């Protein structure tokens, strides 16, 4: 009896029914799965961070470690697409590293600088330039013996030949030229004047930053300069009209050279009467009276949302320092007069030359706006491609049908309108001129366009500040750049 009881007791203490044991085991195993799962997710995130995200994160100017990296790596080169060195680090006789920019002020804004604050490509690819392709045995060897590794090179999309031509064509005038590839968004050339020479920025810094003569040489006019678009804005106005009026082909207007609305007079260029015009003719001749009358009937809301779909009132989708263009018409605030002025690109609307190039490129590319970009790929010092940037769509701003019609309108500007100077080129150019009037000063001369009209390879935007009409001063520059590209 006694023995039996003791046995039972023992059993209760030391062992439990096996069902219970099994379920305990299951419970604990499920806890193992949960925790190991959490840890694996965390490790995955960590690896993802190092592989993908860290490049952008550590490029921040707040990261003090850039200076540490600079001690181990010779900053890489920045190259043009056609193989020219735009920036490189030279080691002088005293073993000092000097950042050199062989083309002086030509690339100052887009390529940027490293002294007095980093800008341009030097800023956005700072970490890339200070990183050496580290998988090779040679890099590891250099690391170990203490020889500085050569940093990775940045190959830009810029075409030196085009840039040189645009730079020369602008001459001593102030302004900007932007050329982009419509299908990809690659920036082929981007020039701003006046500029500065990044080679001796340290010596000239005070003068440059003081800017007594309001030249703003540090400002990249191409992407940060904001100008009234003048008649180039009629592309947007025409699109607004086409969308609101399906029978736009039947449009007809009798131009007398000027029109009046509640005491405000809008004149055509030189008060020239264009007579009876349809939409295409009005566009080709850049008829202000026709377009301001069109503006009267456009709903402000539609006009605003259309322009915002073209990236007005927001930063451009590009890794290039830019100021947002502005379109200020607003329901309840803006009257008919302002709408009429806005329709012909006068009003308070402002646009950067880069942005205007994107609009030309959008028409050229069947309505699709590509993100403009200036960096084609990253290469190791040995020429191995480490990372390639691929074209990205920013928005579909219009249907291909709308784009086709705008294209034909822009072509007629060259064939029988204000840009007829470009008529006799070997390839077909399409575009729009603009003359943004300035109170008390000469007008800004604009031209935006693309070529060849049937299969556009290059889109361009030219502005010459305070110079005169677009057809007289902007067109020749565009012509030279087109010629440099096609010949």
């Amino acid at each position, binding site marked *: 009896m006694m023995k039996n009881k003791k046995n039972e007791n023992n059993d209760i203490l030391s062992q439990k029914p096996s069902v219970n044991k099994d379920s305990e085991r299951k419970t*604990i195993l499920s806890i193992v799965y949960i925790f190991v799962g959490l840890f694996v997710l965390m*490790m995955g995130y960590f690896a993802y961070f190092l592989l993908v995200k860290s490049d952008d994160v550590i490029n921040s100017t707040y990261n003090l470690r850039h200076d540490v990296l600079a001690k181990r790596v010779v900053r890489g080169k920045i190259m043009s697409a056609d193989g020219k060195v735009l920036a490189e680090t030279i080691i002088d006789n005293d073993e000092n590293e000097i950042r050199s920019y062989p083309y002086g002020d030509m690339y100052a804004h887009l390529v940027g600088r490293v002294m007095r604050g980093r800008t341009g490509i030097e800023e956005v690819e700072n970490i890339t330039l200070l990183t050496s392709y580290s998988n090779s045995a040679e890099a590891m060897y250099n690391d170990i013996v203490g020889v500085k590794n050569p940093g990775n090179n940045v190959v830009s999309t810029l075409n030196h030949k085009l840039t040189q031509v645009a730079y020369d064509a602008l001459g001593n005038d102030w302004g900007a030229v932007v050329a982009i590839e419509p299908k990809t968004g690659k920036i082929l050339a981007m020039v701003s004047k006046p500029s500065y020479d990044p080679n001796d920025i340290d010596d000239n810094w005070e003068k440059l930053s003081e800017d007594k003569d309001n030249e703003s040489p540090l400002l990249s006019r191409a992407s940060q300069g904001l100008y009234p678009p003048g008649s180039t804005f009629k592309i947007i106005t025409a699109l607004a009209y086409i969308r609101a009026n399906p029978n736009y082909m039947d449009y007809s207007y009798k131009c007398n050279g000027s029109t009046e609305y509640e005491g405000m007079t809008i004149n055509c260029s030189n008060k020239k009467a264009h007579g009876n015009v349809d939409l295409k003719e009005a566009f080709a001749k850049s008829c202000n009276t026709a377009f301001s009358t069109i503006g009267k009937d456009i709903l402000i809301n539609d006009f605003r949302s259309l322009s915002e779909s073209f990236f007005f009132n927001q930063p451009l989708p590009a890794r290039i320092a830019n100021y947002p263009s502005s379109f200020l018409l607003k329901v309840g605030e803006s009257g008919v007069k302002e709408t009429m002025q806005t329709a012909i690109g006068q009003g308070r609307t402002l646009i950067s030359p880069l942005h205007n190039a994107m609009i030309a490129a959008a028409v050229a590319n069947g309505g699709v706006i590509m993100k403009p970009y200036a960096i084609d790929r990253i290469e190791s010092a040995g020429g191995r491609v480490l990372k390639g940037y691929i074209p990205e769509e920013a928005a579909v701003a219009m249907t291909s049908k709308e784009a086709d019609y705008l294209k034909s309108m822009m072509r007629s500007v060259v064939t029988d309108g204000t840009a007829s100077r470009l008529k006799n080129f070997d390839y077909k150019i399409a575009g729009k001129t603009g003359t943004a009037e300035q109170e008390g000063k000469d007008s800004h001369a604009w031209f935006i366009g693309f070529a060849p009209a049937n299969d556009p390879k290059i889109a361009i935007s030219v502005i010459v500040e305070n110079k005169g009409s677009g057809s007289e001063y902007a067109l020749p520059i565009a012509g030279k750049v087109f010629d440099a590209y096609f010949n």
Partner: protein
Amino acid sequence: MHFVVELTKYLMLLIFGAYTYHAFRVSVKKNKNTRAISLRWMTCFLFLFHFTGYFTMYLQVQNNKLVWLYGGELLVFILVLSLYKIIYPGISELLLRNMLMLLSLGYIILTRLSFDKAVRQFLISAVALGLGLLVPIFIQKYYDIRKYGWIYGIIGIFFLVLVLLIGTESYGATSWLTVFGLFTIQPTEFVKLLFVLCIASLFSEGTDFKRVCAVTAMAGATVLALVFQKDLGGALIFFVTYIFMLYGATGKPLYLFFGLAGGSLASWIAYSLFDHVKVRVMAWRNPFGYIDKEGYQISQSLFAIGTGGWFGMGLYQGLPTTIPVVDSDFIFSAISEEFGGLLALCLILLYINCFLILINISLKTSDDFYRLLSLGFTVMFGFQIFLSIGGVIKFIPSTGVTLPFISSGGSSMVATIIMFMVIQGIHSTANTKMSVKAAASLGGEIYDEKQKK
């Protein structure tokens, strides 16, 4: 010199990686001989890693104090390895080595960050390891510690309330207590031990619904006390530990489910009520947007990890001290910056290895109290690592939690060593029992085999 720093960087990665590999090998392999060989390799790697670290640092700072510190640490390692084995033949040697490896990595990175803190850390951990020697004896001898569940719980809450009343604030949380004006301790770390003891004790006596409600109320009170201290990380750790112990004791997934759902709800309420919670979440979602203030710490941490890359900058070659509180909550970033992301990944693997060993001990323990006790400690340990590392790599919002065995912090170090030693005690008790039983029941059922059924 640069040559050596670079070379040892790769060397240390190799050693640490090889150590981790063998740790898993020992966990997986059944063959006793294979395991013994791997364990021997691990001992070699442990000493090699420790030496290489100090060698690299000495070359760069050439401070003779470093030699003394190294010698002291080496002595402690040797003593721990030999004494523990003599006194407790049944101890898990793998777990013991892992603990020393983690300590060694912690010693090195702390010495690099702040010599004074490293010395302090070394002295405290040496004392704790000495005390730890007694813990398994205590566990084996005092069977009755399981009987005072409510008392543990009440003492725990008492200390937390005491801290609330007379504690000092640091880094936004009021969780420090100054003892006799001499030194400060963080009672939360010790309340952790009491808390797990309490829950294990209460649930091993029964898990009927009434009891579950009562215990939950007490656990809730403990968590609330931590919330009032603004110790979010602590509150989360206690909460999660409780939920998993409840699940472990009852085996009912519904408890786990409702517990976690309730926890999410509570977090959401905390988020909408407390500004300091909002700030943490804000800094997590967009650290660079608030880089000047709220997001500064996490941004610096990401810069450190990102710039270090896969292979790291090498000891003394990075800028880990730009991260606020780098020696404690953010120490993982310093490791990743100077030792590299690969070694950091190995470190996580090593922690997983520890977690698996610990939970395996819990799995093999038939005694309910011990099973729950080791399960509670295991979950606490695992979740703390998750919070700490997840927070500094921006996987989850940062909650300011230390990394066990590595972060500077005396209370945390002592508590973690005791925690490990309790589990070692449970393991060696089971091991000893097993052999006694096996001997006693020749021809009968053997404990270990019964489990396999």
